[in-house]
């Protein structure tokens, strides 16, 4: 199963809106909270529509619009979205109204838009697209689930052009609650300082990454998703190692064919040790990178990693500050393995290959 990437639209805490500038300078943050750099939405959303939209909904609709435009696709054959938390801002607004108003005077707008599938649904309404529309909500593997569904659909019909996305937002309340349970590092000097502390927690982030994927090979495709797999709760490192080996071999590749590994290292010492052990076992001599200092930690951050990988494959350029070992690609980068795991529970592998 594979799919070519024909278009991208990405809003993140980095300057990822205009891909012509890739990789650009890393945007620096001096705290533990990375917020998206938002574009001018007026190009994609009418003011009368915008007034009801939460920040994330605007990000999703704009990124989808940019992605469709980039791929020169007017009407996708499917809209498949992955999100960990859905529309948090509207959910919080609705729940706060319930409490503040003693369960009375509930207004419809935030309730309507508080569901997890709001982004996918809103894009469909705006496009008048009544085709397949699904949102996957599954913790840190929400994007991979959406990608897997896209690959299955494309296997059945190569001509389908699917709008695939990973999106999550960081609200004040969520940041505070997650902070109280120790999700975010308190002693950090900024995003580029992420891996320099032997402590728990990470930095908070958010993003909206959209892709148009299709089974049709075109000369101007960016790259291709060559596979995705998910692995739940390994009982030992041997099991994890076998999972990674088998995934790569099943795609007709050997370990040495992987030119770059992009890991989900996020500064949390327990979680990062899992990556380090796998790196030592499998990728000791392979250029290995991380990306969460660029976008922060959020449930669908692996969609940002996919965008990063796609851009590296397309341009053969990469940010200098992503590498965590001394190896850098010595030749063309043709195969990138994205390895993301959460608490050694949900492990996800995505293979990106050059066209």
């Amino acid at each position, binding site marked *: 199963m594979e799919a070519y990437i024909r278009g991208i639209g990405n809003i993140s805490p980095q300057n990822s809106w205009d891909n012509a500038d890739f990789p650009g300078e890393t945007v620096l943050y001096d705290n533990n909270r990375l917020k998206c750099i938002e574009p001018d939405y007026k190009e994609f959303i009418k*003011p009368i529509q915008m007034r009801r939209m939460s920040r994330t909904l605007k990000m999703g609709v704009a990124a989808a619009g940019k992605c469709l435009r980039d791929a020169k696709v007017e009407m996708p054959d499917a809209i498949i979205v992955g999100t960990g938390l859905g529309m948090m801002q509207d959910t919080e607004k609705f729940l706060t109204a319930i409490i503040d*108003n003693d369960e009375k005077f509930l*207004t419809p707008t935030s309730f309507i838009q508080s569901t997890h599938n709001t982004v996918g649904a809103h894009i469909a309404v705006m496009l008048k697209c009544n085709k397949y529309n699904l949102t996957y909500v599954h913790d840190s593997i929400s994007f991979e689930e959406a990608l897997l569904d896209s690959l299955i659909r494309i296997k059945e019909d190569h001509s389908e052009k699917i709008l695939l996305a990973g999106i999550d937002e960081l609200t004040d309340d969520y940041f505070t609650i997650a902070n109280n349970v120790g999700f975010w590092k308190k002693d950090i000097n900024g995003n580029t300082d992420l891996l320099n502390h032997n402590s728990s927690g990470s930095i908070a982030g958010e993003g909206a990454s959209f892709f148009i994927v299709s089974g049709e090979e075109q000369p101007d495709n960016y790259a291709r998703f060559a596979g995705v797999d998910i692995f739940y709760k390994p009982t030992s490192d041997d099991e994890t190692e076998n999972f990674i080996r088998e995934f790569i071999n099943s795609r007709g590749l050997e370990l040495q064919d992987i030119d770059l590994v992009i890991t989900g290292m996020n500064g949390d010492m327990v979680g990062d040790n899992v990556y380090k052990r796998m790196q030592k076992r499998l990728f000791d001599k392979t250029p290995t990178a991380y990306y969460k200092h660029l976008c922060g930690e959020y449930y669908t951050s692996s969609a940002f990693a996919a965008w990063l990988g796609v851009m590296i494959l397309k341009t053969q350029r990469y940010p200098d500050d992503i590498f965590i070992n001394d190896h850098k690609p010595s030749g063309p980068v043709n195969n990138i393995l994205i390895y993301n795991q959460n608490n050694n529970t949900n492990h996800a592998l995505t293979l990106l290959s050059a066209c």
Partner: protein
Amino acid sequence: MEELIQKLKVEIIEVLNLEEMEPEDIDSDDPLFGEGLGLDSIDALELIVLLEKNYGIRIEDPKDGRKIFFSVRTMAEYITENQK
């Protein structure tokens, strides 16, 4: 009445998120729905809640809504007549 109309305009802008709009941009006698301000059915629900929450007025018969919410002035008149 004029004071209430001004207050209503501010509240409408707030609850309907009419960004970039000022109270003076809303004509007191222009239709709120359709060709005037261009509001829709979700806005109607927001206005019903506004009347109940801010003025303690509950619209019992939905058919009355068309008349009550025709313009800011008709809203203000209905509030004046029905507020306890």
